């Protein structure tokens, strides 16, 4: 470094922007116009001017009319790739077209006219009979009165028909007015929407459509040509062909597929009978254990335990509520059957947790496994319970254990998901620290991952309990016992009293379990 260089004060560089007052800043129209031209393609000059006036406006609605948008309507929007506008105005314009069609060629009085014709024919019939009766020397006045009445009715119908036909012109005009209004709106609004698209295009030029492409225009025209004539035809012409309103499906396709599927399920059920029976046996063991504890133990003991648990976990208010609920259940004679419901929920929850948490740990650690499991979990939660009750009957039969399996399908996803979520949420640096101090994989899981994922896992267990509770009533449909059965019987005989009493019992069971669990988890969270 030379001394001279060091002594030199740092010169102001030429590139440094000169300080300018805000009012001196000028709009760089050339650059903007070039960018707009890049975006708009054809008619770049027009759009540059239009956007400029939109950019310059201070009011809310800029006054720029797009003639092309007004003339071609949705097809202008399609050609320019503004699909939202295309669909919105296509649907609105179809309403206008249908009105125009009804007014122009829809036979509006046709119904009333046909009725008038029928009434006139019957009147003539009665009048003929009256004449015949008179000719035979009998009293035909009854027929004559009827005939005259009908004649008058026919006259009224004819008047209605004429009035409707007269309305046709009005409807035609309304349709035309609507169409013109829509086109004016598109003319006024087109540039505003297009300018918004331009703003988005500047951010993501690859994703937002730009220019005017033949492909887009053809797509818009194709969609319009399919949708508009068919819809207008359907709504303006009487007696459209059947294929237009109902899909021409072949009934054999359905019955053949159903029969084939039934065969497949039967074969599978027969083939895997051993495995399915084993699963049912296992579930029954769990259920029997819990049932024995709840029903086999003398009721004062069970009630006292529930009361104390409620007090310890959720405080005195929940304990009092629990006591009241237990009294209701006991005095109405629901004790045993309510305990069966609790046993069903308990067995389902135990199995959900025992299976779900290890699965959740696995999915939390392996991104690939989770990717495969996620659609299955979605399916388990979105499939309505009624749908999978049938295959469950086919594979596992009826009764409580299959009911528990159905409950597990519905209740397990939350605990899996939230365990996986909790595992993924464990900070990487804490895991790294444990590894750096020589922890094994098991120590890492036991000392770091599970404790840190615990709040999330607890939330999952809580949700699983609530979902199992809601499902345990539905399983009475496949022979599940408990309070659900009471409701189902009441439903079958439309028995209002028993139904309401049983319903309240279920409500109390659910609320007691929910309050106790929530209270316990809240205390765990606070710690």
């Amino acid at each position, binding site marked *: 470094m030379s001394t001279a260089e060091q002594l030199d004060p740092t010169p102001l560089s030429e590139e440094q922007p000169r300080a300018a007052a805000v009012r001196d800043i000028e709009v760089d129209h050339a650059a903007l116009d070039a960018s707009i031209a890049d975006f708009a393609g054809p008619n770049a000059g027009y759009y540059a001017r239009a956007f400029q006036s939109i950019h310059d406006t201070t009011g809310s609605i800029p006054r720029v009319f797009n003639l092309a948008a007004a003339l071609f309507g949705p097809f202008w929007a399609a050609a320019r790739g503004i699909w939202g506008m295309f669909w919105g105005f296509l649907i609105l314009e179809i309403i206008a077209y249908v009105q125009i069609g009804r007014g122009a060629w829809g036979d509006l009085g046709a119904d009333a006219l046909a009725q008038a014709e029928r009434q006139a024919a019957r009147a003539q019939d009665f009048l003929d009979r009256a004449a015949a009766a008179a000719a035979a020397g009998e009293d035909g006045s009854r027929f004559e009165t009827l005939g005259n009445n009908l004649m008058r009715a026919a006259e009224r119908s004819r008047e209605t028909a004429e009035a409707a036909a007269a309305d046709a012109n009005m409807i035609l005009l309304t349709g035309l007015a609507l169409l013109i209004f829509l086109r004016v709106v598109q003319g006024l609004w087109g540039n505003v929407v297009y300018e918004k698209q331009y703003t988005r295009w500047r951010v993501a030029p690859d994703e937002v459509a730009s220019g005017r492409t033949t492909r887009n225009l053809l797509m818009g025209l194709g969609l319009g040509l399919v949708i508009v004539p068919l819809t207008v035809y359907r709504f303006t012409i009487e007696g459209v062909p059947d294929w237009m309103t109902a899909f021409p499906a072949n009934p054999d396709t359905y019955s053949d597929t159903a029969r084939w599927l039934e065969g497949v399920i039967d074969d599978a059920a027969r083939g895997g009978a051993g495995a399915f029976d084993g699963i049912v046996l296992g579930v029954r063991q769990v259920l029997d254990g819990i049932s024995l504890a709840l029903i086999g133990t003398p009721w004062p003991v069970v009630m006292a335990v529930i009361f104390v648990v409620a007090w310890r976990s959720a405080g005195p208010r929940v304990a009092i509520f629990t006591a009241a609920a237990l009294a209701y259940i006991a005095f109405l004679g629901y004790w045993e059957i309510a305990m069966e419901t609790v046993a069903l929920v308990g067995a389902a929850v135990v199995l959900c947790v025992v299976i779900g948490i290890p699965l959740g740990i696995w999915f939390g650690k392996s991104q690939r496994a989770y990717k495969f499991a996620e659609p299955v979990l979605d399916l388990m939660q979105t499939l309505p319970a009624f749908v999978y009750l049938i295959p469950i009957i086919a594979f596992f039969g009826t009764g409580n254990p299959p009911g528990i399996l159905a409950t597990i399908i519905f209740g397990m996803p939350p605990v899996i998901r939230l365990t996986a979520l909790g595992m993924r949420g464990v900070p990487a*640096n804490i895991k*790294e*620290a444990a*590894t750096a101090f*020589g922890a094994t994989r098991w120590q890492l899981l036991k000392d770091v991952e599970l404790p*840190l994922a615990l709040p999330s896992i607890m939330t999952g267990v809580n949700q699983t309990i609530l979902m199992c509770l809601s499902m345990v009533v539905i399983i009475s449909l496949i022979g599940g016992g408990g309070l659900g059965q009471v409701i189902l019987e009441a439903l079958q005989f439309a028995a209002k009293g028993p139904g309401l009493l049983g319903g309240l019992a279920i409500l109390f069971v659910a609320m007691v379990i929910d309050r106790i669990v929530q209270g316990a988890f809240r205390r765990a969270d606070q710690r």
Partner: protein
Amino acid sequence: MVEHVVELSGVWKVFGDRAQETIVAAKERGLTKAEALAEFKTVIGVRDASFSVARGEIFCIMGLSGSGKSTLVRHVNRLIEPTAGTIRVLGEDVSAMGPKDLREMRARHIGMVFQHMALMPHRSVRENVAYPLEIRKVPKSRRWAISDHTLGLVDLTGYEDRLPRELSGGMQQRVGIARALASDPEILLMDEPFSALDPLIRLQLQDQFKVLVRDLNKSTLFITHDLDEAIRIGHRIAIMKDGVIVQIGTPEEIVTQPADDYVREFVQGISRLKLVRAHTIMEPLTNGHAHPSADAVRVSGESDLDSLIDVSVNSEHPLVVQEGGQDVGVITKTRLLRGIQGGAS
């Protein structure tokens, strides 16, 4: 003979499927980081790094974020596997270790401190510090005793039963240091331990740490992005840029002889007063020189600029530098001023 506790030679870390090809290409035609990304879709994290840390030394690795310093230090305890090169810790080849030996080495010989503390939020301070011992299945009574003792070393006695979140950032990082010291390792890996703390606390902890490491005779690999910090606590400094170690040297060497423009830019703002010593800026006495006057003040070659200024303001003559009782050079006032400025050489 200095004993080296950590030795890295020719260590490469390349992320991506075609790592080996990238290394070959980089060696043969000097492929840059950007070219590697374009050509092989690989990211060069560490590029041919070699250094060694002597026992008792604090070795700083300084670089900006993304320079590969954190990646490099994680090779020492094999949190990251090297793509090429050898790493020896206490004379043993780390890459050749089986999982059990590796865990043993991590648990006994290497303590690590992290930028964001990485304490376990559900365990008390004591149990956090005791965790490395718990991993080694040390009985609880010993664990607690050792952990209480170590917390005493970092002045945290009385906080043993608190949870980490009840402590301030500086205290949490002291817990982190105590945890790293708990298993009495020979080597400490410090990954930007003080970066997240405010400046005053950082200065305190730096001083405390320096004393602690000297007293306990630990060897330290200290990562930082702050050159001031590196100079303050490091015996030697390695400067990294884009995965390459640009220069290794003592703080004075780095400041007075920067290897390239990159390092020069860094050291520009560094105060040289406590770093640069008399023998660096003096004009050596050759035979051509007149013998310095006997009145002139004699100073030691090891005196830093700060003390030279103190002497110089009270003396009219140029200062005379003595080494081993011999006059070896002179420092005029001009030279001293230029030395402070950094243009002496």
